[in-house]
C-alpha cells in the first residue's frame, strides 16, 4: 500500500526518478536564494525576474527550437540585462528599485510573449511558462545539478557580506567596497536559479519553489541557518509529494508541486512555532509567580 503509493512510481519509471532529482537540485539551489530574497523584502523581485527571463528563452527557442543550451543562455542574458538595467537606473536616478524593476520586467515580458507567439503555437509558450519536469533529459539534469552546486558555493562565499548587505547596508558600505558587488552577484544568483528552475518547473513555477518554502520557513526558525535548512526541507518534501500527486491523479506536475508548497506555507502560517497564528493566540506569561 505505502509501497504502491510512494515508492512504486519511482521504482518503475525513470522519468519519475529524473523528475525527483531535478526537483531536489532546484530546491537545494533556489530555496536558500529565496530565503535572502525574503529577508531583503524582495520576494516579488523574484517574480519580476522570472518574467524578465522569458524573452531570452523565447529568442533561444526561436533560433534553435527546444534547445537546452540556447534557451538557457538566452534566459541568462535577458535576466542579467534586466537586473543590471534596473539596478543601474536605481543607483543613478530617483526611481526606486521596485518601480524600475517593474518597468523593465514588463517590457521584457511583453517582448517575450511577442517573440514566442511569432513561431509555433501557444503549446510552446506553455512549455516555457510551466516547464517539463517529467521530460528532463541527461543534459538538463546535469545543468540543474551544476547550477545548484555553483549557487550554493557562491552563496557560501558571499554569506557574510550578503547578510550585512541585507541587515545593515550602511555599515557594509562604511567598512568595505563589497556592497555593490554583493548586490549584483546576488541578483545574478536569482537569475541563474530561475533559469535552472524554468527547465524543470517553468518560469512561473520556478519562483514558487524559490519563494514559498522560504515564506513557510519563517514560521519554523528564527536564525538564518535554521531558515535555510527548514526551507530546503519544505521544498524537497513538496517536490516529492507534488510529483506523487501528479502521478496518481494525472495532474500537471509543476503546479502540483507549487500547490503542495503552498499548503506547507498555509500549515506553517497556522501551526509554526515562531510567530504562527496558534502560538500568537496562546497567552504567554512574562513572569511566573
Amino acid at each position: 500500500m505505502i509501497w504502491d503509493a510512494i515508492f512504486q512510481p519511482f521504482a518503475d519509471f525513470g522519468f519519475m526518478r529524473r523528475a525527483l532529482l531535478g526537483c531536489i537540485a532546484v530546491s537545494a539551489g533556489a530555496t536558500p536564494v529565496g530565503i535572502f530574497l525574503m529577508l531583503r523584502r524582495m520576494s516579488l523581485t523574484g517574480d519580476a525576474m522570472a518574467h524578465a527571463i522569458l524573452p531570452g528563452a523565447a529568442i533561444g527557442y526561436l533560433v534553435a527550437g527546444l534547445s537546452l543550451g540556447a534557451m538557457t543562455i538566452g534566459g541568462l542574458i535577458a535576466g542579467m540585462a534586466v537586473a543590471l538595467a534596473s539596478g543601474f537606473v536605481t543607483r543613478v536616478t530617483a526611481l526606486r528599485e521596485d518601480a524600475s524593476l517593474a518597468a523593465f520586467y514588463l517590457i521584457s515580458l511583453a517582448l517575450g510573449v511577442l517573440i514566442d507567439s511569432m513561431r509555433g503555437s501557444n503549446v510552446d509558450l506553455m512549455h516555457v511558462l510551466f516547464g517539463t519536469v517529467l521530460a528532463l533529459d541527461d543534459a538538463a539534469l546535469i545543468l540543474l545539478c551544476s547550477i545548484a552546486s555553483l549557487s550554493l558555493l557562491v552563496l557560501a562565499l558571499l554569506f557574510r557580506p550578503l547578510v550585512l548587505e541585507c541587515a545593515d547596508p550602511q555599515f557594509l558600505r562604511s567598512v568595505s567596497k563589497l556592497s555593490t558587488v554583493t548586490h549584483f552577484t546576488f541578483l545574478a544568483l536569482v537569475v541563474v536559479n530561475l533559469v535552472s528552475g524554468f527547465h524543470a518547473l517553468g518560469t512561473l513555477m520556478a519562483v514558487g519553489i524559490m519563494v514559498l518554502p522560504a515564506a513557510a520557513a519563517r514560521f519554523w526558525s528564527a536564525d538564518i541557518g535554521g531558515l535555510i535548512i527548514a526551507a530546503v526541507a519544505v521544498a524537497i518534501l513538496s517536490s516529492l509529494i507534488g510529483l506523487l500527486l501528479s502521478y496518481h491523479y494525472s495532474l500537471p506536475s509543476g503546479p502540483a508541486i507549487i500547490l503542495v508548497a503552498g499548503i506547507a506555507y498555509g500549515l506553517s502560517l497556522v501551526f509554526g512555532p515562531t510567530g504562527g497564528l496558534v502560538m500568537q493566540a496562546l497567552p504567554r506569561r512574562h513572569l511566573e509567580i
Partner: protein
Amino acid sequence: MAFGSLSRKDIAYLPQQSDIDRTFPLSVVDLVAMGLWSEIGPFGRIGKERRARVDAAIAAVGLTGFESRPIGSLSGGQMQRTLFARLLLQDVRLVLLDEPFNAIDARTMADLIGVVRRWHGEGRTVLAVLHDLETVRAHFPDTLVLARELIAHGPTELALTAENQFRARQMCEACAGPPHVCGRSAA
C-alpha cells in the same frame, strides 16, 4: 574631501538613524562581531581570541547576558549599546557620532558617555553632533558651535559663551519657505 593620513579603516560612523533592518534574524553577538570587519573581512574566522574581544565589548556597554538575543527584541537604548559595542571593536582613530544620545534613557546615556570618555582617554578623536548643551559642557572638552555657519570653536567653556549661544539661536530662527541661503542683515 581630504582625510589626511586617515583611511576608511580609521573612521567609524554611527548615523542618527541607522537603517538597520531590526526584523533581520541576527543576534547581538552577530551584529557586534561585525565591528571586526577590518580584521576578518568577508571570510576570516572569529576564533576564541576574537570571540573574547567581542564578549569584552559587549560587557563594556553593559549588555552581558544579552549576547544571543535577536536584535529585533532590543529596546532603543539596548540597540544603541549594541552599536557602541560594535564601534568599540572597530578600533578606529576617528569616531563620528550623529546625535548618539537621542531618545535614550538616562542610564544608557551615562554608560555610553563612559565609553566616549574611554575613547578620549585612549587618544582617539570623537566628533559628536549634539543639541544638548549640558552634555557638551559636562563631557566634551572642545566644541564647534554651528548654526548655518561656524559661530565659534575652541575649548568648550570659551566656545559656549552666552554671547555665542545667543548668536547661534538667532541664526536658528525659523525661516519661512523652502531652505534657502539667508542674507545677513546689517547688525
